[in-house]
Structures are given as structure tokens and as C-alpha cells.
């Protein structure tokens, strides 16, 4: 139960930890720091988290999806700290005997993580820094 890391993500290694000889497919999703957000240039992002709670919330999502897609094998790593354009912030792998479950479990996982896990990002660009999502309202 260590879904958070301060180090670069090795997606290929993550895939190897998941695949079983019964799996006919896997889907890997990586979220990557891009050079723009809502029309503004982005140079880097600082990811902050409420770490113990984030670990618990991610674990709850993994268990929920394992129950929903019993044939799938799932894993996820989220990186924290300062990332630059091109760095991966998250990698999710969903392996399954058939591709439909792999796609659905992977897509479902990133959607739930973005919705529920206490992780935040502060974007830095030529115009300064800003916490994403805090637009003067809670």
C-alpha cells in the first residue's frame, strides 16, 4: 500500500508487476505535465498531498475497482513534488484476460482518483504560481 512516490515513475516496471500469464491485454495510462493549462503557459507543477489519507483513498479506489472488474489486475503510482513538462505525474496499469475490462478499469481509476484523492497541484509559469481548482471558491 504505497501508491505515492517522490521519484520518477518507471511505467514499464509497473506493467511487469501486474501482468499474469492469463492476461491478454493491458492498458497503461500516464498523466504527464503539459506546457499549458486553460490558455496559460506552464513550466512546472508542484504536487502536494495529504499523504496518509491519499494512500487510503487510492487503496479504497483500487479495492472498489477490483470488486467491479474481478478479472482485472490493477495498480497505480502517483508522483509528488516538483515536476517539469514531460514528467509523468501518475501511471495506472490495468491488465485483464480481455481488453474491455482493462480499458474500463483504467479509465474508471483515473476518473475516481481525480475526483476523490487529496492531492493538489500548483502550476508555475511565466506569470507566477497558482493552485489549480482554487478559483476563489471552496
Amino acid at each position, binding site marked *: 500500500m504505497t501508491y505515492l512516490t517522490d521519484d520518477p515513475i518507471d511505467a514499464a516496471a509497473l506493467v511487469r508487476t501486474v501482468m499474469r500469464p492469463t492476461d491478454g491485454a493491458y492498458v497503461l495510462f500516464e498523466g504527464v505535465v503539459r506546457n499549458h493549462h486553460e490558455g496559460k503557459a506552464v513550466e512546472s507543477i508542484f504536487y502536494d498531498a*495529504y499523504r496518509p489519507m491519499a494512500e487510503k483513498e487510492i487503496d479504497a479506489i483500487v479495492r472498489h475497482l477490483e470488486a467491479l472488474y474481478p478479472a482485472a489486475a490493477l495498480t497505480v503510482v*502517483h508522483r509528488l513534488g516538483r515536476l517539469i513538462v514531460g514528467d509523468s*505525474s501518475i501511471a495506472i496499469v490495468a491488465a485483464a484476460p480481455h481488453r474491455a475490462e482493462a480499458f474500463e478499469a483504467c479509465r474508471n481509476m483515473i476518473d475516481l482518483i481525480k475526483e476523490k484523492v487529496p492531492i493538489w497541484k500548483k502550476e508555475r509559469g511565466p506569470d507566477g504560481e497558482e493552485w489549480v481548482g482554487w478559483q476563489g471558491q*471552496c
Partner: protein
Amino acid sequence: MPSMKVHLLFFAVLRDMTGTGQKDLVLEAGTTARQVWQSLRAQYGQLAAFTQPPMVAINESYAAPDTVLRDGDQLAFIPPVAGG
């Protein structure tokens, strides 16, 4: 009225606004998370406009803002999340 201790954590924009990551509070028994938020608004000018608290977490789980706190609780206000 008996008092209790609550450990308050700040993250992300709230840590920047309050200038700290944590704070020990001594509260009257029966105090809710929402009431803690109101006292923070009085204390930090940048929060004054936010009449409604963000999401609340007690002991690392989401909770309703009107939950009554208990002695030893760890309380956090969760700004809009942006992981992934």
C-alpha cells in the same frame, strides 16, 4: 465546559494562506468542523470570503462539516483536489 484537543492540518492553498502546515487547537466539547472553519475565517483575512468550508477530513477520512469533533481528532480542510 470540558475542553478537547484537536490537531488541525493545512494543505496546498490553505497552507500558503495560513503560513503553516499544522496547528493544535483547544476547543470546547461539542465543537464541529464547521465552527473551526468559521474561527479560521475570523483569524485569516484571505479566508473571510469563504462562508462555506471546503471538504472536511477527520482522522484521514472524509466527514460532514457538521460532525462534532472529539478529543484527539486530526482535522483537515480539503481544498478542491487536483491529482492525476
